């Protein structure tokens, strides 16, 4: 299976290295000559050097036979056009843009290109650092509009021994699952929280701190 990556920098190198070691065929399109030379020397990948605005590059990168295309250049306009060309001209089935401006995550998806933002991920992580000890895992879905948080209830938490209906939980925060030891419980209002319960909480990013305050 061939993966085509458009971009430059060290992240592209590590990404390509992982994929080649997993047995994928990798093509890299880069507009930076020193980076291209470094990739050629250190990777088992097909490296194409040229301007991102040149439609021929994708053909040279064997985009016709590729199954995955990743647009991760430092310019979002190049990412969009490369991804759209990969989709419309080369009919690559799976396409992902790694956008620089976090706002473009939503913009791209409305134009029909799936996009993720490293910047948004960093912002979320940094903002939640103070709460990180309590959070076991956190997943963003729907372009970051919804967050699923996994947190463990400590023994001294206020909510221990209370049923969900006794706890003032806003409508925008949903307790979807409680993991208690080996058991997976889909909670109801009458479900009582115990210490060491692991909660899967579904909420909007803005309400995550409210959820943490209630259950921490």
């Amino acid at each position, binding site marked *: 299976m061939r993966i085509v990556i458009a971009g430059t920098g060290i992240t592209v190198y590590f990404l390509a290295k992982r994929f080649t070691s997993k047995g994928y065929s990798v093509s890299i399109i880069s507009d930076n000559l020193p980076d291209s030379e470094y990739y050629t020397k250190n990777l088992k990948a097909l490296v194409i050097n040229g301007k*991102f*605005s040149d*439609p021929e590059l994708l053909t040279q990168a064997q985009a016709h036979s590729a199954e995955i295309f990743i647009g991760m250049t430092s*310019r*979002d*306009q190049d990412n969009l056009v490369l991804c759209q*060309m990969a989709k419309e001209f080369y009919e690559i089935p799976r396409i992902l843009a790694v956008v620089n401006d976090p*706002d*473009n995550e939503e913009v791209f998806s409305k*134009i029909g290109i799936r996009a993720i933002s490293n910047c948004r991920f960093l912002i979320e992580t940094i903002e939640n650092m103070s709460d990180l000890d309590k959070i076991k895992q956190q997943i963003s879905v729907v372009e970051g509009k919804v967050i699923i948080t996994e947190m463990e209830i400590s023994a001294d938490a206020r909510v221990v021994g209370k049923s969900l209906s006794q706890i003032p939980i806003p409508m925008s925060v949903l307790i979807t699952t409680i993991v208690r030891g080996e058991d997976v419980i889909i909670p109801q209002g009458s479900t009582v929280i115990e210490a060491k319960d692991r909660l899967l909480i579904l909420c909007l990013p803005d309400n995550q701190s409210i959820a943490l305050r209630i259950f921490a």
Partner: protein
Amino acid sequence: MKEKYIIIIGCGTFGSTLANRLSSAGHSLVVIDQQEASFKNLGDEYSGFIIHGDANEFLIISQAKVDKADIVLALTDDDNLNIMLSQICTKLYNVPRVVARVNNPSSSSVFSKLGIETICPALLGCDALEKSLDDALQAGAGK
């Protein structure tokens, strides 16, 4: 003629000349450019607004009240940026008329595949020049 709200992105020679004309004709204009010096190209007859910023940043575009625009012209020297801006204006803001400048004639296939209305100054220039040289070219053929 009804007055229109027109946004021009890219205030080089092309963008500024057009902005001056349309402003003189009584339309409301906003011109966006990332280089402040470019706005010097706008003459005294220009009475619209200017926004200094990189049109690549989504926030800058939304500042221009794109949702209210009758016409958006993406005239920067960056073809991929023009493609992106055209699609944002058409698909996100439902702007009724969007035209993008094609700098490199070879990228026009990408524009047309994506259904973007374009203008290519290089090709228009060639056509015009060829036509004006028509007599000379014909006469030359006899030599």
